[in-house]
């Protein structure tokens, strides 16, 4: 089991003070840097969100997204660099297609595809990161908690 796979389960666990849980895979170069800056500015984030640091959004595989949902998360977001500005050239394009694949996979078994979403932002845009997280939180709160067997 890789370090990333191990990090998913604790991140997906539902927080004590919240009804929903969202796992956010953030790329180190852009999204996590933006998250860092917004945290330094003490911008409050929704309590449902847990960040998982990945080197690049292209590291996130369909298995990571689905296991986050299966382990307890109600939503899962992948945040990467702007299109064409990936620090590893094309990682975010791979991530965009994988997210689209997982959305179709979820739709085919009757789960709302909005639970998985891709966002792009640059390192210098903390407000955009906060807006993305709040948007995801709003969408997930509009849905029922995810049922698991």
């Amino acid at each position, binding site marked *: 089991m890789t370090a990333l796979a191990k990090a998913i389960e604790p991140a997906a666990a539902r927080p004590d003070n919240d009804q929903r849980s969202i796992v956010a895979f953030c790329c180190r170069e852009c999204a996590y840097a933006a998250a860092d800056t917004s945290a330094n500015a003490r911008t409050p984030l929704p309590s449902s969100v847990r960040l998982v640091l990945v080197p690049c959004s292209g590291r996130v595989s*369909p*298995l990571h997204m*689905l296991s986050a949902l299966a382990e307890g998360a109600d939503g899962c977001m992948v945040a990467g660099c702007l299109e064409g500005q990936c620090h590893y050239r094309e990682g975010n394009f791979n991530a965009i*297609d994988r997210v689209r694949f997982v959305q*179709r996979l979820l739709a*085919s*078994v*009757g789960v709302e595809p909005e639970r998985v979403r891709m966002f792009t932002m640059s390192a210098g845009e903390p407000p955009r990161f906060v807006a993305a997280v709040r948007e995801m939180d709003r969408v997930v709160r509009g849905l029922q908690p995810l049922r*698991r*067997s």
Partner: protein
Amino acid sequence: MPLTRRGKAMAEALPAATFKSSGSFGCEIVRHEELCVGCGRCATSCPSGASQRGESFDVKQLLSAPPDSRRGALAAALRRIARHEPEAPIDVPPRVTTYRTIAYEADRCLGCGTCARACPVDAIEARPPRAAP
């Protein structure tokens, strides 16, 4: 695969002419889709283009994958949150290459067995040609 004109002539020229009644040569290719990992080596090694990477992915194939494999882990996660059985096969975005169902056309297959040798997980079986009826 049906014989070519030249092949037919050669088969008829054989003294015992055992091929004549069989109508086809080559191995019978049997694909075990549930074991497939989607690497696409059968498609790249196929000399006649009978096996090709498809544009869609059959979710039922994913759900029947062996549990200790990577696809099996994905299937286990999907099964936990699934509300109903998967319906039609899904279209796959271009950059997702491993989660694709291989499109196999038996009409174009030569029965050479190259795909069975290229397959890393023994999902393709090349059986000896069936006996003549």
